[in-house]
């Protein structure tokens, strides 16, 4: 009879084998495949392909189309991450500080996280419709309020009509970013709420005894430093999600990613180039660049988490 140790060893291999196999086939092999394909001019359905060296990468970094991709993706991430972080933190702080209805606000702010983003993006498109959309209707209805007219943009819009939003390349990326923030900040809020409840109450009392009189003092001395690990985590997860934005752009602009490709983000580029146009080699090279970027960023941020966590 085998000892239980030997049995455990055998079972160990048996138990990790399926996971190991799937990890290899679904996660590792595709990366290697993408790396290989990125050096070819392969197309689906073609019998053969040629090695083209770094041509695909050169195109990614030189063509104006991909310049727009890098610009749109960077702007999207660079705006969505800090704004949704600030709004999430602000909402969490406000919700914990009000005496009533905190749970109600929490529920409402979390709804966008649950709803299918594609569906909600389509609804936003309706709401932002230049003539029958509710957004412009609401904006127009405020034109008689004089203090609002002091805002030059608003005053001009009241005179000359409100923007086309999605159809205007000055606003298109902004609207995509707005919907991205609308969807993301509730998630961040919930993470911050969890972070806030884990701050020991005695620290606030110690701060009070030490003379932290204003809310700002307490925030600087206790809340913000104690939320450090949560904040780094929120940045990581929001950044990873923001990099992968796709649904909003596909909902708004099924073809072409917006007026003059103003919302041509990386995932859309991969989809359009690799799948729709069947330029697999080029799509693969975008994939590799994109993946390297995400993984390096995640690693850097995780280091940050570890550093922050270790003061506890």
């Amino acid at each position, binding site marked *: 009879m085998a000892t239980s140790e030997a049995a455990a060893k055998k079972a160990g291999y048996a138990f990790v084998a399926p996971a190991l196999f799937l990890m290899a086939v679904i996660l590792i092999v595709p990366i290697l495949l993408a790396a290989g394909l990125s050096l070819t001019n392969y197309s689906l359905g073609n019998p053969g392909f040629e090695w083209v060296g770094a041509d695909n990468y050169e195109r990614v970094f030189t063509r104006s189309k991909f310049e727009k991709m890098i610009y749109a993706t960077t702007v999207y991430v660079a705006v969505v991450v800090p704004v949704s972080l600030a709004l999430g933190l602000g909402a969490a702080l406000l919700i914990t500080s009000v005496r009533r209805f905190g749970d109600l606000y929490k529920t409402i702010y979390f709804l966008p996280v649950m709803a299918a983003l594609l569906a909600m993006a389509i609804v936003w498109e309706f709401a932002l419709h230049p003539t029958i959309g509710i957004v412009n209707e609401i904006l127009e209805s405020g034109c008689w309020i004089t203090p609002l007219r002091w805002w030059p943009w608003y005053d001009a819009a009241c005179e000359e009509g409100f923007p086309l939003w999605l159809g205007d390349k000055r606003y298109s990326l902004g609207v995509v970013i707005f919907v991205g923030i609308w969807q993301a900040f509730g998630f961040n809020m919930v993470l911050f709420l969890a972070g806030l409840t884990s701050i020991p109450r005695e620290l606030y009392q*110690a701060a009070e005894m*030490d*003379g932290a009189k204003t809310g700002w003092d307490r925030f600087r001395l206790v809340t913000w430093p104690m939320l450090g690990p949560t904040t780094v985590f929120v940045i990581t997860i929001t950044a990873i999600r923001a990099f992968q934005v796709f649904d909003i752009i596909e909902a708004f602009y099924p073809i072409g990613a917006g007026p003059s490709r103003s919302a041509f983000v990386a995932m859309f580029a991969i989809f359009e180039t690799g799948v729709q146009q069947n330029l697999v080699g080029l799509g693969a090279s975008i994939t590799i660049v994109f993946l390297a970027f995400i993984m390096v960023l995640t690693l850097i941020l995780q280091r940050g988490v570890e550093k922050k966590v270790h*003061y506890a």
Partner: protein
Amino acid sequence: MASITLSTITKSFGETPVLRGIDLDIADGEFLTLLGPSGCGKSTLLRIIAGLEGQDGGDVAIGGRVVNGVRPSARDLAMVFQSYALYPHLTVERNMMTPLTLRDLGLLERLPLLRHLVPGHRGRMNDIKVAVRETAEILKIEPLLQRKPGQLSGGQRQRAALGRAMVRKPAAFLMDEPLSNLDAALRVHMRAELAELHRALGTTFVYVTHDQAEALTMSSRVAVMMEGELLQLSTPEEIYDNPEDLRVAEFIGSPKINTIPGEIDGAGRVTAQGLRLQRLAPVTDGKVTVAIRPEHLEPVEHATPEEALGVTVVHKENLGADVYLHGVLESASLPEPLRIVARALPEAAARYGVGDWAAFRLSRGEAMVFGADRRRMRLAPAAAEPLAARA
């Protein structure tokens, strides 16, 4: 330095009253301990003094100034918390600097970068650093100043928390079970150190604990609290020797005081399970509780039923220098057997084995008698009695 005066403090959490009208005068420079079981309201009272919680009724005065509604930071008190509540992201030095920077520096001066523009900033920062260093010296934590709380042991954190409290030289220190997170040996050591620190500083200490040993060893006076009431306020000796309330008698002392149901006859004589007390009660007829400390009972081989309690030994608790004999007293008048503990010297205890009969004689000190309202009854010596056994 200041005295603290509490008058008729009341506080409820929702429908539950936690403080039922507390009056307390804490003298300047005193080490006063609030002692009681958990949930007695002692921590709430301390937090009301600190201003971390508002009272529902009554006044708090510090140094003669009524401070109701005054912010904690404006009360000139320092507090040491049970969990120490050190800021985990700051070094010990920065932790200790915090109360000084918050008090002495303006808002502008506390902002990063901008602070360098404020005139006199460097000088004020130097003063603060010097103050921190002096305190660290007293507490012997200078080598720890650059460490973060996460890198300190429990005892070191305790000192750092003390340092943060001491550095701004407050009018009084408030301490909420500061030793409860330390291991037993360190706790005993810190007891002595805190008492010394109190003598050296001469500042008022208000100390909350549920540990009677801490209360008895360190305090000038002890306030025993139970169920939101202040039961007794006296010196540690008085609290132990002369409890005014049965609950105080039962709470203080280890092993717990023996309590025996008894009664008073028409002449004021007190009997408990046959044991006759020599002194007379101020009232006649009624049920009472007779309480006797284990060290006041002595196992003897021969005694009359009137001067001793007859028990069966069920357990011997050997503590080395002393042995506690646990006996069981069975009687038809008792709903269940009564456990009686007597302290004996090892030689005396050796004569008894588990299962033996023993007589526990009231040999030293006095039995205490508590009425049905749990208040102490003062007994008068019975002049006419010829028998001189002190009881």
